[in-house]
């Protein structure tokens, strides 16, 4: 069973590394969006530090949206998605592997570039560690939620914008809890409770989302 998981992840990573723009573009986009804010509203360090959590999380959401399209779309077009659905393994398990690979390719790079953004937005070390932790727990939830949206819209011709309309409202709690945690850290308060909440949401998403994704794919690919 874990071999199957590993095989799917392996295939995804191999394919993605052959066409590297798929990995780099969302991160690139993420950095550019964050850079726009100081340019748009001024460079006062106090102001930047105040808005940093929101800016980074909204940018992360947008970057995630940009990358979702490739989660199932290419597979849908070339037929590998229907082949995946005909494998003698649980579809929920197979899509979990795909979502995990997607997170490795889009969520993880954002974590890697986050120190750079902390410097750009004048964050102190305590705030940054909160940012890092929320990104670490929050981006997998985004990937799982987004995958439901993609699975629902992958068969549609104009699925892209619909995906954002469906997915963004549902990701509001992640945005709220993450930015609250970072805010708390900035004021020197404990944010463990908020992290625990995010963690609970992650656990919930990991257990429930794969089934929703599988069911959605069965609708979209028919």
């Amino acid at each position, binding site marked *: 069973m874990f*071999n*199957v998981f590993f*095989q*799917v992840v392996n*295939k995804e990573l*191999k*394919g*993605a590394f*052959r*066409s590297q723009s798929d990995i780099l573009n969302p991160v690139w986009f993420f950095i550019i969006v964050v850079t726009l804010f100081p340019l748009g509203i001024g460079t006062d360090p106090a102001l930047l530090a105040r808005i940093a959590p929101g800016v980074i999380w909204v940018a992360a959401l947008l970057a995630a949206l940009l990358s979702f399209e490739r989660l199932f779309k290419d597979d849908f*077009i*070339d*037929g*590998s998605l*229907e*082949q995946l*659905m*005909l*494998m*003698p*393994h*649980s*579809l929920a398990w197979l899509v979990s592997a795909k979502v995990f690979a997607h997170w490795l390719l889009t969520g993880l790079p954002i974590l890697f570039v986050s120190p750079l953004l902390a410097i750009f937005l004048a964050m102190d070390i305590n705030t940054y560690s909160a940012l890092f932790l929320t990104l670490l727990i929050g981006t997998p939830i985004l990937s799982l939620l987004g995958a439901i949206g993609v699975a629902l819209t992958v068969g549609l011709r104009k699925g892209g914008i619909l995906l954002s309309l469906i997915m963004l409202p549902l990701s509001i709690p992640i945005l709220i809890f993450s930015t609250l945690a970072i805010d708390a850290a900035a004021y020197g308060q404990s944010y463990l409770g908020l992290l625990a909440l995010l963690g609970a949401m992650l656990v919930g998403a990991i257990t429930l989302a794969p089934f929703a994704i599988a069911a959605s794919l*069965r609708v979209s*690919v*028919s």
Partner: protein
Amino acid sequence: MLHCEKLTCVREDRILFKDLDFTIKPGEIVQVEGPNGVGKTSLFRLIVGLSIPYAGNVNWQGTSILNDRENYYQNLLYLGHKTGIKPELTAFENLQFFQKLQPSHPGIDLWQVLAKVGLAGYEDVVTAQLSAGQQRRVALARLWLNDCLLWVLDEPFTAIDKSGVKVLEQLFIEHAQQGGIVLLTTHQDLSIDKQLLTKITLQKIEDDFYV
């Protein structure tokens, strides 16, 4: 073995076919024919469980396929219009993935299979660089690889030359003789013995708009 029971297919409020009944036993090669747009592909997608019938049932060994997908898919190989081959991966990597995830003949050598489908020398080329016919061959190579009883092949001969078709026909016959089932559509005339080949003809529903 494979039993379709009162299958009805409605696509966007249009009835493609209704109350379709047939049973396919091991050792049969079945060709589904009919004009374009009559629902051959839709029928195949119902049979493999990609779509859910408007009414009726597809049963495999007596149980509905929708109730026991994993068992059914142990026995099923489906090749559709889309090849299911990842263009960023090489022919070898593509096949390797399917070999690991699907029940396969034990100890089969991928290099040999690739040579058999005429891709010797292209094994480690990214499939995006191959021609349409060659990409098709990568997908068809799965026929030699897998250990499934039921093959459902939607237009397997697309972009395949005459000699290739001959080889495939031979393979179908062998598969049927070993107790397998081949279900296919094609616009070409098959040169398979009439005794081995069964035909199902789908007809356009004209007068009868109603379910």
